[in-house]
């Protein structure tokens, strides 16, 4: 297992080098002078020269690249043009908000998607099955930003039940420990902040989790249907085991591999979806930060956030691969 992990980590190196080159070149692919593009046409020559100097744009391309990589090794992603802070500091401030949202979206997606898939498979070809699968296909076809708007309109604007933006109501105090508000409020025993941050999480989590939920439901159903037909399930029934035991102890365990694969694949969708969801719900995470940086042409920030997103994405995919052994001991890594 350890050998496999090391092998996989080594295999990541060329991919990460490629990602680095691509992100480094991002600023150089921009048509015209990136400094003018950042500052606008009205910028003075001095301002343009200053930006060019600070970004190292006056050096030869390969020197710029090696400097860029060297800085990254020293955890220096440059400074945000917008906030003047270190990009890495900005990322570490905002990333917990995205993590919190992503976790809750995943809880929603798995918590609803897996039971629906199981029930659909058990009641194969029934009206419930048809309804769920049509619903799941609509879920996959639905733009999350539209669902987000509809949720805001219904639950925030019309019913006034849930908040539609930010992470915490103004006036409610919470000390930052991990910057994961739910965890922080539990650690501090702050019940008011806990309920408030939970309320703020509901709508964005549903919006972000809708597509993964539909995909997980579809995969759970088809995987369960395949397993239910196997001889050992028939044998389990023949032995007189209860339906619940057969489904959850025998069938679900064996159907888990494709379900976990699809859950792992959702991480990319969630990270990408977080950009849209955070924009709609004014969620102060990394996705919204990226979009704001794009609007303001803050290219160092764009570079840093895109690099960070892809690193997280690659590492999570690796983690999901490694998780398979825990779920299915038949899989051996050589």
């Amino acid at each position, binding site marked *: 297992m350890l050998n496999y992990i090391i092998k996989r980590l080594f295999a990541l190196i*060329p*991919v*990460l080098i*490629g*990602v680095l080159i*691509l992100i480094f070149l*991002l600023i150089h*692919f*921009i*048509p015209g002078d990136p400094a003018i593009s950042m500052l606008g046409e009205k910028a003075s020559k001095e301002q343009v020269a200053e930006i060019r100097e600070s970004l190292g744009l006056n050096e030869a391309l390969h020197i710029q690249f090696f400097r860029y990589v060297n800085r990254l090794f020293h955890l220096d992603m440059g400074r945000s043009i917008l906030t003047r802070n270190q990009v890495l500091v900005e990322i570490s401030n905002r990333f917990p908000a995205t993590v919190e949202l992503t976790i809750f979206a995943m809880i929603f997606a798995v918590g609803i998607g897996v039971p629906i898939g199981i029930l659909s498979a058990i009641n194969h070809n029934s009206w419930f099955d048809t309804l769920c699968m049509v619903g799941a*296909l*609509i879920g*996959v*076809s*639905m*733009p999350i*930003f*539209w*669902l987000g*708007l*509809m949720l*805001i*309109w219904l639950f925030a*604007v019309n019913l006034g039940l849930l908040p539609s933006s930010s992470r915490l109501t103004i006036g409610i105090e919470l000390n930052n420990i991990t910057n994961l508000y739910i965890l922080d409020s539990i650690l501090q025993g702050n019940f008011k902040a806990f309920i408030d941050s939970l309320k703020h999480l509901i709508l964005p989590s549903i919006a972000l989790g809708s597509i993964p939920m539909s995909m997980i439901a579809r995969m759970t159903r088809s995987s369960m249907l395949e397993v239910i037909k196997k001889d050992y399930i028939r044998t389990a029934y023949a032995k007189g085991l209860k339906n619940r035991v057969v489904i959850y102890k025998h069938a679900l365990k064996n159907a888990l591999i494709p379900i976990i694969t699809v859950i792992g694949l959702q991480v*990319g*969708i969630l*990270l*990408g*979806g977080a*950009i*849209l969801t955070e*924009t*709609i719900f004014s969620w102060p995470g990394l996705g919204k930060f*990226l*979009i704001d940086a*794009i*609007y303001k042409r803050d290219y160092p920030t*764009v570079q840093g956030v*895109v690099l960070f*997103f*892809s690193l997280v*994405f*690659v590492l999570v995919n690796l983690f999901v691969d490694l998780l398979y052994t825990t779920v299915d001991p038949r899989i051996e890594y050589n």
Partner: protein
Amino acid sequence: MANNFNQSSNLWVDTWFKLIKNNVGRIGLIFLCILLFIAIFAPLIAPYDPLDDNLMNRYKAPSKDHWMGTDEMGRDILSRIIYGSRISLKVGLLSISVALVFGTLLGILAGFYGGMVDMLIMRVMDIMLAFPSILLAITIVTILGPQLKNAILAIGIINIPRFARVIRSSVISIRESEYIDAARALGANDIRIIVFHLLPNSLAPLIVQSTLGIAEAILEAAALSFLGLGAQPPQPEWGAMLSDARSALQRAPWVATFPGLAIIFGVFGFNLLGDGLRDALDPKI
């Protein structure tokens, strides 16, 4: 030769019949026909000019005159949705064409030649897959500038690895087949083998991937336009219409409701058709 032609035409006829017998495929086909009809005959169907603004008519609720109401510029939403179908179809078809052409080419080269070529191409594909797809699209549009044509290109580029992977695995599974050896023994060169043997035998997964890809491309284009990185005002693109609707959610919810339903309709149709085609082209079913 004639026999070959008959056999292959029978295969497509069989697939067609399987598709229209399949509930999912049939409904998908109906959705697609409706969408195509609306897009082609948009000038005849749309009650108003989609760009015709009239500030006196701002935010009118759905009524007999404006079935889906009007937006912040007093434009008829129904007409904009009807014309928007043209943009969405154009985006879907063009971007997937880009992905199909380049993805197929790269996938065939990787699968057929193997070795260094395969390693090189697939590592580049891995690098592209190291980004969540919408993030890569956003990055490309950031570089090229926020325009619809750049969004189309970006969506095309992000879909290349998916096509390359599908075609590569298909080519690998058939490149050692006896009929490929036979073709080679008869003196066929690489290009002939690729064009006349490998490509036709890899068509089924490509067709399914393309259909499902169009659905995803429509969603991705709408997302880019929603973020202001795709179609620009006053183009009646569904995602851009949703973006405009954000500020008027309380006052005029219909401005957001109908473009979203239009997106679901289009994407749902292509998804159904893709699922139906997958079943129809599966020889095991």
